């Protein structure tokens, strides 16, 4: 994917994201977009608190950010040609998110077959080395048929 193609893709994805009511409700934003990877974040919001005693954000809200960011990373895969959907997403919660702080999610597609994109993501406040949560997911994926011609398809049968 050329710089120009990536820019176009990001522009389209940003518009798409802005039109998603649930992402809008949680005030999510796109921070970084690259080939097959993305960083998104959402501000601390008292409405998303899951534990009123500590003010810690509900895991479900972090999960929503992770799911969105993973889907966005799939959209940024060079061979992605149609909208994606989550097949499954596993969240591992390492520690409570710090109350009052913006939460970031960083996702990357580590493998895409003709039909499935496998994605990993982490959530953190400021240090990716100290994650709040990690996620692993499988997403619906359709590879462009054109790309098959360009980089001669492998016949190893390694495609799931």
């Amino acid at each position: 994917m050329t710089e120009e193609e990536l820019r176009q893709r990001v522009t389209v994805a940003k518009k798409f994201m802005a039109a998603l009511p649930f992402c809008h409700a949680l005030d999510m934003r796109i921070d970084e977009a690259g080939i097959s990877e993305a960083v998104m974040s959402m501000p601390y919001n008292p409405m998303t608190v899951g534990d009123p005693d500590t003010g810690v954000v509900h895991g479900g809200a972090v999960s929503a950010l992770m799911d969105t960011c993973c889907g966005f990373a799939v959209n940024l895969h060079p061979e992605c040609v149609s909208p994606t959907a989550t097949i499954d997403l596993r969240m591992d919660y390492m520690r409570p998110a710090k109350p009052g702080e913006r939460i970031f999610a960083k996702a990357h597609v580590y493998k895409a077959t003709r039909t499935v994109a496998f994605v990993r993501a982490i959530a953190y406040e400021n240090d990716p080395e100290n994650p709040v949560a990690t996620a692993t997911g499988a997403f619906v994926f359709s590879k462009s048929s054109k790309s098959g011609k360009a980089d001669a398809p492998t016949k190893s049968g390694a495609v799931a």
Partner: protein
Amino acid sequence: MNKPESLQVVKQRRDGVLAALVDSIPYIKFLNISFDRRGDELTAVMQFEDKLIGNPAIPAIHGGATASFLETAALIELAWQRAWTAMEDSQLDADDVAAAGYLRLPKTIDFTVDYLRSGLPRDCYARARVNRSGRRYASVHVEAWQDNRARLFAQATGHFLMPRLNTGG
């Protein structure tokens, strides 16, 4: 022998404990989730609202909203079951239950959501089943559906860390 409690008193106590568990959590309010109670059985209900939409083109409920709904159903079911036993055995009311630490929600260790079909712009229902509940760890399975109980649109399984009780019991 104690006189049996009137139905009204029993209902009030049970509904009071459930409300104490659910009503203080902002994210549950934000998602418009409520709980239907039949005896000890809970059904979580997420009333549809436009803000829950993820993809307006289909339109479908955002996977994150679905995940949040399922995780909430699992957490409340776990806390509710433990509180139920204490409440019924010792006829505790909401204040006693709170004092004993039953209203502290378990902490999610991991949670895996299986998206079976897209969530339609309708109300969602979920029921959680506690498959194992030890003193520290619990394993819970949740099923969610919309119009048809047999056609799940999502299911999930997760592990939880149980909060310690004040009474040590």
